[in-house]
């Protein structure tokens, strides 16, 4: 990957490290909830979606039915469908690569890719982020599962703030008005429009959160595109 420069690798590394630490807490929680270490690791490799994993294991541990938990997890992951439409061209044309690339589709890899302007850099960011996160997440889960209850929650380290902050930092370049003397040559995006859509999307999701099941408010935010059509 000739398109990975130091800065990109460092940024992706920071997110992968945070995800590994959250993985440690998932591993510990899953084992505490009665999953075997290997089942927890298997789940993390084949599902590879932290939010849904925490939710499903938490619901089942609290006595909920596995069917309801899986449905809730699937609803939370439904956002990957529109994500896939947007990043399809980054996955290449060969089938093995596309099938593997689809599995690496997580919020972070999508956000990192969208934050790059150059198409080659987009591709590099997507694969580097997806790949490093996959390794970091699963190593974390293994460590957490082995350590068991000894590991404290990610809240103590403030990692629940690291995720939204990193996503926001990735979003900012497409929302920021072009400064004086700054070239925006090949970017067709209009920051004004993007800002309105982002704001309306965020408000829609926040208002919907108390009323709708987890996962749906984020999908609902797609409706915000309507303000760009007016």
């Amino acid at each position, binding site marked *: 990957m000739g398109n990975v420069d130091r800065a990109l690798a460092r940024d992706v590394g920071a*997110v992968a490290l945070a995800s590994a630490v959250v993985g440690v807490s998932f591993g510990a929680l899953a084992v505490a909830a009665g999953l075997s270490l290997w089942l927890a690791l298997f789940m993390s490799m*084949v599902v590879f979606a932290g939010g*849904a994993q925490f939710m499903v294991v938490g619901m089942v541990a609290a006595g909920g039915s596995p069917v309801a938990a899986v449905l809730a997890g699937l609803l939370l992951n439904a956002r990957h469908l529109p994500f896939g439409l947007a*990043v399809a061209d980054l996955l290449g044309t060969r089938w093995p690569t596309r099938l593997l690339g689809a599995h690496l589709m997580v919020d972070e890899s999508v956000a990192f890719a969208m934050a790059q302007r150059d198409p080659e850099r987009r591709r590099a960011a997507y694969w580097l982020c997806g790949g490093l996160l996959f390794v970091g997440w699963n190593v974390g889960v293994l460590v957490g599962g082995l350590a068991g209850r000894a590991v404290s929650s990610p809240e103590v380290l*403030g990692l629940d703030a690291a995720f939204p*902050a990193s996503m926001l*930092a990735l979003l900012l370049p497409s*929302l920021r008005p072009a400064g004086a003397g700054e070239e925006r040559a090949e970017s067709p995006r209009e920051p004004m429009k993007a800002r309105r859509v982002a704001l*309306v999307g965020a408000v829609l999701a926040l208002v919907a959160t108390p009323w709708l099941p987890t996962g749906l408010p984020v999908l609902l*935010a797609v409706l915000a595109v309507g303000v760009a059509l007016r």
Partner: protein
Amino acid sequence: MTLWPILILAAGTYGFRVAGPLLSDRLRLSARVQGLLSLAIIAMLSALVATSTLTSQGGFAGGARPAGVLVGALLAWWRLPFVAVVVAAAATTAGLRLLGFG
């Protein structure tokens, strides 16, 4: 928990992930639709930022997390390095919790 719920969750999640690339083979998206799709992703990622900053299990997340994200946002706005943004956000939230705030 047994293997079955995990397999179904994995299969369904992968189905969502692979559906986009599969669909994009069938439908050639015009430049306009591509642009709207980019906006849709921006809307969803913003929604993700807003909900994961302010809410926790359908309710308010408390003060420490939004404060940390705010500090991170300011640093990002001032174009500080990404790593600094992430570390400052986490450190602020962790520090506030240590002091007993939300």
